[in-house]
């Protein structure tokens, strides 16, 4: 019997001929990731493990300060410091402090730390992002991460796979974000729990690397353990530009078993919006704009849509215009490299001239940490991935999730706006 892409990677890392869904395996990891929040807890756990003096391999650990950076308060500064000292003590090769990194999931691929066929675990649920590169990547809690730090192995239950087959060409102002929001809407927030999502079809073959990142990133929003694409020439070129490390490109077998196969035709797809308070409450933009929803804040950034391609889309829409009065637009480029590229291209100036507040890279407002926290009764539209109650601050705030283009169009009007009518938006 054939294996899915996820099963292939898991079998190789467990040194087994084959694996099947439900089987529990011990797998070797190629990289273990943590941020200052998950690392702080994991370091504490590791110090309590008898006989665990050292990490298994300092070259296979990545530590990124991104959630509360630059430090929001003394407590946050303490967590970042704990991680920094641990990195020095353990000689961790890939440690990214403020000003040298950015959001973990933006930084790791940029730095060549993710390659096809690899197995990556991270102390962050959006670790599934690296499935964009044909890697098996999944999020875990800090105790699991501490165990991985020490053993270089994790125990995993092999997930059954759901095959999603996309067809059709996206229309104007329809992006990977819209496709993925629709997908989460269709699967539901627990539709893929304990499952792997395998993305297929002509639509995703045509997608850019960042488009695939956006889609793999939100696999967790359907509850999935991981979301994975097949690596192709584009992926291999991207990775080889950044690392000399050898990697193995795996492919699903022709007779692989899928629990479900779902076909999604996107040729008629409109821009999509996830309405409060769950990421699967997804509606086409024309239904949402009918309610004429005024917004208090637009947020552009995160590991879902904090990439240079995203900022280019936003800058193009805002170029030479002003954002609506009585509106805050906050932009967090995903990484230091994205920030510098955007500076080189004049994007940061375009955004600032339009009235946006451009922040230093990091998670920022995405999870209500700081730098754009919502107040009671406020409404925001955001390029991020979650809109649970209280996610961006006040539990009495409303969060709408959409693409960078939809958020930029909304920035011009101060209302949730269809980017397809953006030309008609008065300056």
């Amino acid at each position: 019997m054939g294996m899915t892409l996820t099963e292939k990677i898991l079998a190789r890392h467990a040194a087994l001929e084959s694996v099947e869904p439900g089987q529990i395996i011990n797998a070797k990891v190629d990289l273990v990731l943590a941020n200052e929040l998950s690392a702080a807890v994991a370091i504490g756990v590791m110090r309590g493990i008898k006989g665990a003096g050292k990490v298994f391999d300092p070259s296979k650990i990545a530590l990124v300060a991104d959630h509360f950076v630059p430090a929001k308060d003394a407590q946050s500064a303490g967590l970042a410091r704990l991680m920094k000292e641990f990195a020095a003590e353990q000689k961790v090769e890939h440690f990214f402090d403020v000003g040298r990194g950015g959001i973990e999931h933006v930084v790791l691929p940029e730095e060549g730390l993710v390659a096809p066929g690899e197995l990556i675990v991270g102390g962050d649920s959006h670790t599934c992002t690296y499935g964009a590169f044909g890697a098996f990547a999944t999020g875990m809690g800090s105790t699991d991460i501490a165990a991985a730090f020490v053993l270089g192995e994790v125990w995993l239950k092999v997930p059954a796979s759901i095959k999603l087959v996309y067809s059709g060409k996206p229309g104007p102002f329809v992006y990977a974000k819209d496709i993925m929001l629709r997908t989460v809407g269709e699967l539901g927030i627990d539709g893929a729990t304990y499952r792997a999502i395998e993305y297929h079809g002509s639509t995703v073959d045509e997608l850019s690397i960042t488009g695939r990142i956006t889609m793999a990133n939100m696999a967790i929003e359907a509850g999935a353990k991981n979301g994975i694409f097949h690596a192709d020439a584009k992926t291999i070129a991207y990775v080889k530009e950044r690392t000399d490390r050898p990697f193995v490109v795996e492919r699903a077998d022709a007779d692989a078993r899928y629990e479900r196969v779902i076909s999604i035709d996107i040729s008629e797809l409109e821009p999509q919006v996830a309405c409060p308070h769950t990421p699967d409450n997804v509606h086409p933009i024309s239904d949402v704009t009918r309610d004429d929803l005024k917004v208090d804040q637009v947020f552009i950034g995160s590991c879902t849509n904090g990439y240079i391609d995203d900022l280019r889309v936003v800058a193009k829409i805002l170029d030479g215009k002003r954002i609506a009065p009585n509106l805050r637009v906050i932009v967090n480029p995903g990484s230091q490299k994205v920030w510098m590229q955007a500076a080189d291209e004049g994007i940061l100036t375009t955004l600032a001239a339009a009235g946006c507040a451009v922040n230093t890279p990091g998670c920022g407002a995405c999870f209500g940490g700081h730098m754009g926290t919502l107040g009671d009764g406020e409404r925001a539209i955001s390029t991020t991935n979650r809109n649970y109650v209280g996610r961006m601050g006040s539990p009495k705030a409303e969060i709408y999730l959409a693409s960078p283009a939809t958020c930029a169009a909304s920035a011009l009007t101060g209302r949730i706006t269809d980017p397809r009518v953006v030309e008609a938006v008065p300056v």
Partner: protein
Amino acid sequence: MEATLRGHAHKYGKNVDTDVIIPGKYCNIIDRAELGKHALEGLDPEYTGRMKPGDIIVADTNFGCGSSREVAPIAIKASGTSAVIAKSFARIFYRNALNIGLPIFESAEAVDGIESGDEIELEPAGGIVRNLTKGTSYRAAEFPPFMQSLIDAGGLVPYVERRLAESQ
């Protein structure tokens, strides 16, 4: 094995996510007691004031969905809550709960048969859920053998210690 747990039920709906279990702004807290004061704050700000030590959270499907923050089960445990019964759990929360030693019980029938305020008795070893108020009893889903062996060993940490000792 763990002793019998007893407390009153506090019942909630489906998809109780980690952002309401412990909001992001508290994720820079390491002190467990402090975390415990904010358990469930985004969903039910009165929970920690109302609950008594030993009480039990009862919820519908997909409990603990969202982020991987281990402080979510830690906050629940630190609040004095003795266990969570749900129709199903989100994947990362499930692992985290086992790893930090928060007892969890998966049973749709038990959830349907419990109302807020009911007095519940739990036997973690056998996965037994007894509704003392209604005089009913349920059996929660068994853990796969590997996970049961982790639980029996006292969690992931002793397991890692054993593996390290073996490799010496």
